[in-house]
């Protein structure tokens, strides 16, 4: 492991660092020796998180749109996965996780472009750095892919690629650096175990900005079409759930009780939020729906994400309940009060969920709520202050930067929206020349 990286490691992986020192003292980290068990788990977690996007998220989103756009949604997700991976190798990882020297509070440096200097024996803590790189890459893949849900059924494919690519570098990499890469939020001790800020808040708020610029789908809100394939939605949600074990459990960067607790609380929050969403629908509409149930699942998962390494089972139950109620409400507010066609509710589920969890963790990590405890000398309100600052900064930067990136993209693609004809005929055939179902 290069010296610059090691120097960075302690503050950089803030959450990890905290955890490691607090709960992880039983594994030999100090010596910077490879732990094959930890490595095995993070290799697995990498596969699990990739599985979340491919095909989990793709199916989850694909089932929610109309049948004439399902392939375009899958295409968005897969193409984003490919492009983000390559960009992550070229520059994203380096900007996120290396020392940015003078600018280090804000952004990393260029020492790891193309994974330069990383051999098979370069370590990042107790795991190979290439494993850490790949694990983080899967996060960089899913975050822009989450935003697909905001702009489906009407955006140009070229705009998807350009906007996502720019966004990775201008929004995702800096925020990652702030929180996990040794930047200013890490220095303040912000808690974000697996990406409430880095992943869900950035994607959620950016989605709203994109939707405002893009406009609503034809027929919104009165004549929108219902999901074309709720079973596909549920299948995707199940895969997201399973993959999330790697997302949150893997963020411990070790195969130990900390990973186990992250996995446990993740599961409990997901289960609880699902049940809450189901009960709300049952009470309010008379029938609990499958799409509602699994939307609750995703809300629970997004909300527990920042908190997953800090809270206990009781905290997970509370977060699950909060996620169910708050996200359910927000879905309606965005569509009905704000009249924004955030088509698959990226903001209401991911943005709001991730933000909620980011704030709640300040309290729920306290032992009083069964949490794993705050660093010595810190009160809940101290922690809450830091979390709020982190959230405000993340939202602010994501919104402003995305606004500008959308303008740039619109310039490059002569407008990010497809022609109305093409929208009506469907993007599958007009943008990709394909037909989804020939079942006869």
């Amino acid at each position: 492991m290069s010296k610059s990286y090691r120097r960075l490691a302690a503050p950089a992986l803030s959450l990890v660092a905290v955890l490691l020192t607090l709960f992880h003292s039983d594994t030999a980290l100090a010596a910077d020796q490879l732990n094959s068990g930890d490595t095995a788990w993070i290799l697995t977690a990498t596969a699990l998180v990739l599985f979340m996007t491919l095909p989990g998220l793709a199916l989850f989103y694909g089932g929610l749109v109309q049948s004439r756009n399902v392939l375009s949604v899958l295409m968005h997700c897969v193409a984003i996965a490919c492009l983000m991976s390559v960009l992550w190798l070229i520059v994203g990882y380096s900007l996120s996780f290396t020392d940015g020297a003078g600018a280090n509070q804000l952004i990393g440096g260029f020492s790891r472009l193309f994974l330069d200097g990383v051999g098979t024996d370069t370590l990042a803590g107790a795991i190979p750095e290439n494993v850490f790189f790949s694990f983080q890459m899967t996060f960089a893949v899913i975050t822009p892919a989450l935003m697909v849900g905001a702009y489906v059924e009407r955006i140009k494919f070229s705009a998807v690629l350009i906007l996502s690519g720019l966004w990775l570098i201008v929004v995702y990499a800096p925020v990652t650096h702030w929180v996990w890469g040794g930047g200013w939020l890490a220095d303040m001790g912000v808690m974000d175990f697996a990406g409430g800020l880095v992943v869900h808040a950035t994607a959620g708020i950016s989605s709203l900005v994109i939707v405002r610029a893009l406009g609503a789908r034809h027929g919104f809100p009165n004549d929108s079409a219902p999901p074309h394939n709720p079973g596909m939605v549920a299948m995707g949600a199940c895969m997201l759930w399973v993959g999330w074990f790697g997302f949150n459990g893997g963020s411990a960067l070790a195969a130990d009780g900390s990973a186990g607790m992250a996995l446990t609380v993740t599961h409990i929050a997901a289960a609880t939020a699902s049940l809450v969403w189901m009960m709300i629908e049952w009470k309010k509409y008379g029938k609990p729906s499958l799409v509602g149930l699994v939307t609750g699942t995703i809300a629970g998962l997004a909300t527990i994400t920042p908190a997953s390494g800090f809270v206990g089972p009781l905290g997970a139950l509370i977060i699950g309940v909060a996620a169910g109620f708050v996200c359910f409400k927000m879905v309606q507010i965005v569509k009905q009060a704000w009249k924004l066609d955030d088509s698959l509710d990226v903001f209401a589920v991911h943005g709001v969920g991730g933000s909620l969890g980011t704030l709640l963790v300040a309290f729920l990590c306290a032992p009083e709520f069964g949490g794993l405890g705050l660093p010595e000398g810190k009160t809940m309100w101290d922690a809450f202050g830091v979390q709020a600052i982190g959230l405000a900064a993340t939202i602010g930067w994501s919104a402003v930067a995305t606004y500008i990136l959308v303008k740039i993209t619109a310039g490059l693609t002569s407008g990010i929206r497809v022609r109305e004809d093409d929208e009506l005929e469907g993007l599958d055939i007009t943008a990709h020349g394909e037909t989804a179902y020939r079942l006869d």
Partner: protein
Amino acid sequence: MKFVMAVIKPHKLDAVREALGATGVEGMTVSEVKGYGRQRGQTEIYRGAEYQVHFLPKVKVEIAVADDKVAQVVEAIQTSANTGKIGDGKVFVYNMDSAVRIRTGEQDNDAL
């Protein structure tokens, strides 16, 4: 010859097929359709948004019959497809000029 076209509720197809069999009808052609009528469509709610689904699933049955059998066929359909609830469907009858059995080239009543 007449051509009878009926729109019925999907789960009544088996009953209709059997009733027609009893009248001696040996062939029919069936397709999935969506119906719009007095039976209002359903409302589906996904993630808090209400979707007005105007069309309901129905099944269309088409039967070519000799003139003398029409009354019997219509009667059989009407009886077997009836649930007494709104949305039970309709039976329409037209005149047909000619019919051919592709396999043999038989014509008209022989082709049915």
